[in-house]
Structure formats: structure tokens, C-alpha cells
């Protein structure tokens, strides 16, 4: 079982560039989440989805966009990258709100 797969693992972006962080899960989970973790800090919810075609904002959605066209995939789009978006991004999925969350390995993004 691959679980939750995130790509890329590392990326350096220049200010103003855009990119998509990919996340895919093979567990047929309904719920998917994107978090960012700044150095030495906790996990802040960016966006989440309760199923294909449904997305909603979390605590820190500004500067990001998501889509959920399939159950498996939940890409996170950064438009006009800024240094404040330098962080480690984690994607997670759960079958329901009462089951454990599985995390991807993370994407370490640096904006210079």
C-alpha cells in the first residue's frame, strides 16, 4: 500500500512563480487535508475536502487554491509565491472524521 504520496519532496521557487503540490491517496478516503508546518511550529490547516467536488477553507487559505476532481487526488496550487509561503507542506487523508489520519512524507518548499 502506497498510502498518501506527495510530490515533489523538495522545491525552490522564485518570488512570483507558481506551482502545484501533488497529493494522491490509494485508500479510497473521503477526507483530505492540506497543512503547512513552519519551522518549529505546529500544523496549520490550509484547505480540506470531504469528498470529490467539495472543498473548503481552513485557517490559512490565502495564497492557495485546491481542487478535488477525483477521490484520489487533492492538488494544492500556489499562485504568485511569496517568501512567507516557505514551509513544509503535508497532505493527509482519513476515511471519516472518526478514523486516523494518514500523512504524506511532506514537501519542503523554499521561496527565494
Amino acid at each position, binding site marked *: 500500500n502506497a498510502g498518501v504520496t506527495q510530490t515533489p519532496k523538495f522545491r525552490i521557487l522564485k518570488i512570483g512563480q507558481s506551482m502545484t503540490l501533488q497529493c494522491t491517496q490509494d485508500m479510497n478516503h473521503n*477526507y483530505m*487535508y492540506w*497543512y503547512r508546518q513552519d519551522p*518549529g*511550529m*505546529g*500544523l*496549520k*490547516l490550509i484547505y*480540506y475536502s*470531504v469528498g470529490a467536488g467539495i472543498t*473548503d477553507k*481552513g*485557517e490559512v487559505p490565502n495564497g492557495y487554491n485546491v481542487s478535488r476532481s477525483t477521490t484520489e487526488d487533492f492538488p494544492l496550487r500556489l499562485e504568485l509565491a511569496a517568501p512567507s509561503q516557505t514551509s513544509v507542506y*503535508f497532505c*493527509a487523508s*482519513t476515511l471519516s*472524521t*472518526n*478514523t*486516523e*489520519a*494518514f*500523512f*504524506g*512524507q*511532506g514537501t519542503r518548499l523554499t521561496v527565494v
Partner: protein
Amino acid sequence: GQQVMQIPQYQHVQEGEDFTTYCNSSTTLSNIQWYKQRPGGHPVFLIQLVKSGEVKKQKRLTFQFGEAKKNSSLHITATQTTDVGTYFCAGVGAQKLVFGQGTRLTINP
């Protein structure tokens, strides 16, 4: 919106000492989950508490869920160097999983 606060932010102990981290929510939770993140790794699920007043144990780890389902704690007895990492609580509310800030545990061998 829902907020989950966790204290302390950092804890440094001597190996063999006990460790406790506390989690408080601004709203009543349907359940609370605990995760561990090793340095450089990703969060890994430890346990879920669902019932008011619930207590669960995993070897040296004891997890409690408050009677009002708004607070929780994780206690580690006789820490070992393998316990190093950041411990997060996560509360479920309004269909989203919200994490506390985490408690970073370091241990002097």
C-alpha cells in the same frame, strides 16, 4: 472558529523522567486524536479518544479525555530516548481535523 491549544510548547527532560502534555479546545470535541512526529518526519497516529472521561494506555503512554470533552492529556512514564519528537493533539469539529501547536520533547540521555 475551533481552536486547539497545547502546552507546553517545549519540554526537556532527563531520560527516565516523566513527561506530560496538555491539550485544550475552545469547543466540545467529538473525539480527540494524538500524533507523534519524529524530527524530520511526518505525523504518525498514536491513538483516538472518543468517550467522556476515557483513559487509554499504550505501554508507557497514558492518554486521557476530559469529562467535558474539551481537554486531553498525554503522559509518558520513564521517558526513553526513542520518545524524542513532537506530540500533537488534534480535535475534530465541523468535519475538519484541527491540530494543536504541538509539544516538542527533547531528552538528555
